[in-house]
């Protein structure tokens, strides 16, 4: 099978979806690596699964959690690891809404 080619635009698109930034250099070196990874996963294309139906693991409606409210964590514990908090809230630089 022919190796899937990856363009720099494609990698940039994926970086965007991933919320990751790469330097142009990193992007370029990423391409052959990524093509190798695709070569690996592209093997699934050889497999005929046309007659296979994915089965979902399920539970019955009756087995679901009952609607009982319980105590939450204290606010200070919720905010414990936050890089920045103000007024009992997580805080980020002001956004335009």
């Amino acid at each position: 099978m022919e190796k899937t080619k990856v363009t720099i635009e494609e990698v940039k698109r994926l970086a965007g979806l991933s919320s990751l930034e790469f330097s142009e250099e990193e992007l370029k070196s990423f391409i052959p690596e990524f093509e190798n990874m695709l070569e690996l996963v592209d093997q699934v294309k050889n497999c005929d699964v046309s007659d296979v139906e994915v089965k979902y693991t399920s539970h019955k409606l009756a087995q679901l959690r009952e609607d009982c409210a319980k105590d939450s964590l204290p606010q200070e514990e919720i905010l414990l690891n936050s890089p920045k908090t103000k007024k009992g809230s997580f805080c980020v630089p002001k956004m335009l809404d």
Partner: protein
Amino acid sequence: MKFEELSLIELVKLLQEQKVSSVEVTKYFIERIKEKQNLNAVLEVYDDAIEQAEKADEKIKNGFKGKLAGVPVIIKDNILFKGKKASCSSKFLENYVAQYNSTVVEKMLNEGAVIIGRANMDEFAMGSSTENSAFGPTLNALDPTRVPGGSSGGSACAVAAGLCPVSLGTDTGGSIRQPASYNGIVGIKPTYGRVSRYGVVAFASSIEQVGPLTKNVKDNAYMLGVLSGGSEHDETSLKIEVPDFLSQIKGDIKGIKVGVLKEVEEMVKGLDVEKTYHSVIDFLKANGAEIVYSSIPDFALTLPCYYIIAPAEATSNLGRFDGVKYSRRSPKATNVDEIYLKSRSEGFGKEVKRRIMLGNFVLSSGYFDAYYNKAKKLQQKLKIEAGKVFSKCDVIVLPTTTGVAFKLGAKSNDPIAMYKEDLFTILANILGAPALSLPCGKNEEGLPYGIQIIANSLNEGMAYNVADYIEKGYRG
């Protein structure tokens, strides 16, 4: 007393009979961790470890008979223990302090465990050598020039080096079994759902499980009994009674049907592990097991199947690490978009980024059907194929790895070679079936091979029975 030479079960007995105290044992292992610091297996010894041990001793004195009363345990760095750091060996979570207890920690604490520290791992459990840790690689317990395997490399090394009697790892594609194999110990990935994942930092939710790493099979069965059982916090955990795994070890394998896969027979040709693999099969046959030649025709596709499903789930699971609520925020960020971009770019290591990118590729519009959906169907197909095998066999026996532990750095620049480390282990994750690795024989340098026993779902007892028999009788 050399506590590292005792089995878990022996140690439990000594503690319960109050022949030794938990403080004594805990101090002993902490001392060993310090002595073996060069292994870099343990990232942190909790500062209240001795205090925990004191409390355990108090409880034991008052008649407490918990299954782990006073036993020091080390957990992988992706398992939450309230008030303690859990970094997933990532710079991104370097200072993350768990805000709640995972179910497994809760269960161990209920049985009186003394959780003494956290073990190094591949960042976010992505890797097969523990070289992807942001805090430096762990060394193999048996040969410091080699990798301990991964991602639970720290946990495996800790047990093998006698830094604790038992540790916890997580296994998404072989992350307990491969390092167990490389360090010459026993590790199991339980049936999917057997152990709750609540409070375990998720990598690929649909296939991963927590499991114990121990020096021998019986210890492992004992420990799995503690960890098992459904949780109301985890829909995917199985709300069924937990069997007594130890009592399922019968000391006899007569009539047990051992599946040997045609595909595996082909794959092992020329591999390091080939001889050991065949001699284990011969051993089983010679001792009354029935060898059933079977086939999982799509076995070779487990690897690509895994490298679609796991990154897809990972990319979504790791979205929450964004520098907003927890995890390190980039000081360079001046607005929200930059918080995401820069925090994540600075926080995640290379392998994690690779998998996030791959995950987004297979999920993204235009590719979803060709990759993700296809892989899910392939997974279903593999389950059907394996179902046929298990209708005729009690267990499947195959190698854990292609050979012994490889040299540090040997594969770190070749992601695909590293991915292929999971060749034999992924099947069990894809199936959700329990799979155990135990050491079988050594190469001329004295490095262990690992043999894997996969049982049908919920049949850990069967795997333990066969493994125990091999452990007792097989001399490679």
